[in-house]
């Protein structure tokens, strides 16, 4: 009796704490837990196309569509597609994702990205089919 009561309480607690746990991406879930807000794929796409102070945007190297193979703006090195729909390895390794957000937000926008922006960005990437 006692045990049953505890279980139902626990489940109710989980339901409140994780209302949007069905994103199917652990990294996005992490940003979600941090901001407790909602993310917008449209805002993420806008960020992707924003040209910053160095005349660079994400699209400068990753091309118009994140489904394409990109090219490093300086070295010409080929860059694997960023959209998980064509490159399932993307957005699976949190350390890797944080490393590149740090570098590329700095290069393209001249500043660090906020957790909200990272969540929007990953939402956009996951929405590209």
């Amino acid at each position: 009796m006692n045990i049953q009561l505890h279980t139902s309480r626990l489940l109710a607690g989980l339901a409140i704490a994780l209302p949007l746990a069905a994103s199917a991406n652990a990294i996005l879930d992490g940003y979600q837990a941090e901001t407790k807000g909602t993310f917008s794929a449209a805002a993420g796409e806008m960020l992707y196309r924003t040209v910053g102070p160095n005349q660079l945007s994400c699209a400068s190297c990753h091309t118009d569509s994140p489904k394409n193979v990109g090219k490093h703006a300086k070295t010409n090195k080929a860059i694997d597609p960023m959209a998980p729909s064509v490159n399932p390895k993307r957005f699976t390794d949190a350390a890797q994702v944080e490393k590149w957000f740090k570098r590329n937000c700095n290069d393209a926008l001249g500043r660090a990205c906020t957790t909200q922006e990272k969540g929007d960005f990953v939402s956009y990437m996951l929405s590209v089919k």
Partner: protein
Amino acid sequence: MTYFKSITLSLTLLGSGTLALADGGGNLPALHPKMEQECSACHIAFRPNFLPTSSWKQVMASLDKHYGTDASLSPADQKEITDWIIANSKEQGEAPPENRITKSFWFTRKHGTNHVKPEVWQRASIKSKTNCQACHADAAKGDFNEHKVRIPR
């Protein structure tokens, strides 16, 4: 006399070290796997003997401002790769301006206008002096044998 001596010394060092290794392509030591992985995310992983140790130290300590790009690593990865490069490079030759391999004496001598015209570097297929493999197909393996150079259109 001193001037002459220092030139002779430089040439001797270059002959025995940098160029011998850079040209050869045979029996090259394997690169540190993490170094290879991290560097080659943007360009081929350059051989440790392409810069003197003092230049490498400066390059590895300023990865957040890496020739106009933020190439920062986690502190742990940065240390691991730096330690390996220090252990596998030498303090030989003169440190090039801005710690640029492409401004090293041996590089400019081999890639001067008598060998490569300025407009060749501008080609879309080459674009950057960093893009070794555009002309040295096996550059990533450390093979810079000049007889295998093919300059793309």
